[in-house]
C-alpha cells in the first residue's frame, strides 16, 4: 500500500499554475525526500495533502482513502513552514491543545512522550515565543508526533538549524520511522542531510514530478568519478578527453567520470609524460545528481 498517491494534481493561484498534472507515490514506511527548487511546488503539494489548500483538479489518496477522510487525516502529523503554535502560550499549553484536538485518552502522558522523543522535556513550561529557532522546530516536530501519526509531512524542518540541531533532528527522524513505523515526507534544500536519511526521492520541477527513485536506484545511478590534480593540466585534459567520454575541469581539479580504477588513469598519463600530484576516487552525491538532472532539464527546455 502507498501512504500517499497523487494523480494529475493541479493547483493554480490567480491563473498561475503551481502544480500542473503532478503525480506522486510515497510507499508506506519510507522516508521520502522531496526535492525541488524554490517555487517548484513542494510546499504547495504538502499543503494540499494536509487540506490547507483546495486543489484545482486531481486526486489525492492517503493510505488508499480519499485525503478528506477524517479517519486518515486524524493520523497525519505535519510541520509546514513553521510550527503552528500560539507564541504567548507555553509549550505545554500548545501541545495540550493538539492532544485535545486529537481527542486522546491520556493527553498528559502523550505530551511527555513526544517531548522525550524530541529531547525537550525541560522546556514544557517555557513560553513558545521565548524558544530558539531550533527548539521551536523540535516543538513543531513534537506537535506533529502527537497521536501516533502514520504519516508525517515535514516542510523544511532542518532549515536554520545549526550542525548539532541538524544531527538531533536527523536522529529523531530515523527514530520515528524505525520505532514508530511512520511514513515521512520531508522536503529540504539541505540535500547532504536528506541523503543520510531518505529511502526514496521525488524531484519536482515547475509543478511536475520529474523523477521518483529509491535510494538504491539513486546510488546505482550516481556515477563514479576520479578527481585528480596534476602539473600540466591542459595536456592531461586533452589526453583524457581522447580516452574518456566525460572529462570536466572544476577549479584546479580534473574530474574523469565512469572510471572505476584510478591506477589506469595514473598509468596512462605517466606513459604520456604527465605527473599526477593527487588522485582520488569519488562518487557523485545527491546534490550533484540533482544539479545534473536540473541542468539536463534546462537544456531540454522543460
Amino acid at each position: 500500500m502507498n501512504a500517499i498517491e497523487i494523480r494529475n494534481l493541479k493547483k493554480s493561484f490567480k491563473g498561475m499554475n503551481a502544480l500542473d498534472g503532478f503525480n506522486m507515490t510515497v510507499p508506506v514506511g519510507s522516508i521520502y525526500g522531496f526535492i525541488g527548487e524554490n517555487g517548484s511546488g513542494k510546499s504547495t503539494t504538502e499543503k494540499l495533502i494536509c487540506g490547507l489548500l483546495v486543489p484545482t483538479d486531481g486526486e489525492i489518496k492517503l493510505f488508499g482513502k480519499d485525503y478528506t477522510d477524517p479517519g486518515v487525516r486524524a493520523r497525519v502529523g505535519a510541520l509546514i513552514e513553521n510550527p503552528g503554535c500560539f507564541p504567548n502560550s507555553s509549550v505545554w499549553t500548545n501541545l495540550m491543545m493538539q492532544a485535545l484536538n486529537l481527542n486522546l485518552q491520556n493527553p498528559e502522558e502523550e505530551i511527555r512522550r513526544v517531548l522525550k522523543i524530541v529531547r525537550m522535556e525541560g522546556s514544557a513550561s517555557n513560553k513558545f515565543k521565548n524558544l530558539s529557532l531550533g527548539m521551536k522546530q523540535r516543538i513543531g516536530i513534537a506537535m506533529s508526533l502527537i497521536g501516533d501519526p502514520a504519516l508525517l509531512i515535514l516542510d523544511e524542518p532542518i532549515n536554520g538549524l545549526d550542525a548539532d540541531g541538524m544531527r538531533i533532528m536527523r536522529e529523531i527522524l530515523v527514530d520515528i520511522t524505525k520505532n514508530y513505523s511512520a511514513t515521512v515526507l520531508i522536503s529540504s534544500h539541505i540535500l547532504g542531510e536528506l541523503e543520510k536519511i531518505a529511502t526514496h526521492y521525488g524531484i519536482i520541477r515547475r509543478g511536475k514530478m520529474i523523477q521518483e527513485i529509491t535510494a538504491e536506484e539513486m546510488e546505482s545511478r550516481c556515477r563514479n568519478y576520479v578527481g585528480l590534480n596534476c602539473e600540466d593540466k591542459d595536456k592531461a585534459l586533452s589526453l583524457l578527453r581522447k580516452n574518456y567520454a566525460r572529462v570536466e575541469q572544476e577549479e584546479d581539479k580534473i574530474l574523469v567520470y565512469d572510471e572505476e580504477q584510478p591506477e589506469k588513469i595514473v598509468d596512462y598519463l605517466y606513459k604520456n609524460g604527465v605527473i599526477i600530484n593527487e588522485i582520488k576516487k569519488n562518487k557523485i552525491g545527491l546534490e550533484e545528481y540533482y544539479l545534473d538532472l536540473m541542468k539536463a532539464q534546462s537544456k531540454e527546455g522543460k
Partner: protein
Amino acid sequence: MQNSNKLKFESPSFGKRLKSMIKVDFYRLFHTPLFYIMIFVSAIIPALVLTMTGANEAADAQTFTNVWQVVEAISGANSGAGLMDLATMCNINMVFIFVAIMVSIFISHDYSSGYNKSIFTVHPKKVDYVISKSIVGFISGACMIVAYVLGALVAGLISGLSFALGSATILNVFACLVSKIFLMAIFVPLYIVVAVFFKQKLWLSIIGSFAAGILFYPIAMMTAPLNSGIFNLVMCLVGGAILGVAFGALSTLILNKRDLY
C-alpha cells in the same frame, strides 16, 4: 503506549469530532486572557456609565435614574428620534459589540499563529470548526451578558439608583436576558463569517464585524426589550436558530472553497 502504529483508520463520528474541537476551543478560551478581559470589560462598562454620568450631571437632569435603564429599555419607551441618546446606546446591546471583538481576535489568532494548520490537518470537515467556534462564542457571549447585568446591578447599588421595574416584572427581565442570549446565536455566527473571510487580518475582521453587526443591532433592541415575554423568547430562539444555521453554513462554505492561507 502508542508505538505499535498499526495502519488502522477509524473514522470518528461527527459527535466525537465536534467534542474534540470544542474541548480545544474551551481549553484555549480558559487558558488565554482574552475571555477574562472581555468579561471584565462587559462588567465594568455599565458600572462606568452609571457612575461617571451621574457624577457629571446635575441632580435634576440625570440620564440614568434607574439601574435598569443601563440594561435595556421598556418596549415603546424610546421614540425613533431618541435612538442616539446616551441612555439608548449605553445598554446591554453593547455586549454584541464586545462579542464581535472577541470572536474576531479568537479566529484571527488561529490564522496568524498558524494553529489552523494543526486544526485543519487533522480535522478535514470544516463544519466542526464552525460549530465549535459558534458554541464557544455563544457561551462567551452569554457570560458577557450575565457579567454586564451583574456589573450594572452592583454599580447601581453603589450609586444608590432606583431598582424599580415599573410596568415590567422580574420574569420579564429574565425573559429579556434569555432572549438576548438567544440572539447571540445570530451575532456569533455572523461574526464568524466575517472572521473566516478576513482570516488573519484582525482589524478588517473587527471593522467588518461591526459593519455587519450594525444591521442586526436594531433587531436586538426591538425583539428583546426589558418587558419581554414568551413571544419575545420564542421569536429570538427561532430567529437565532434559523439565522445561526444560515450563517454557519456560509462560514463552512467559505472555508471549504478557499485556501487556508
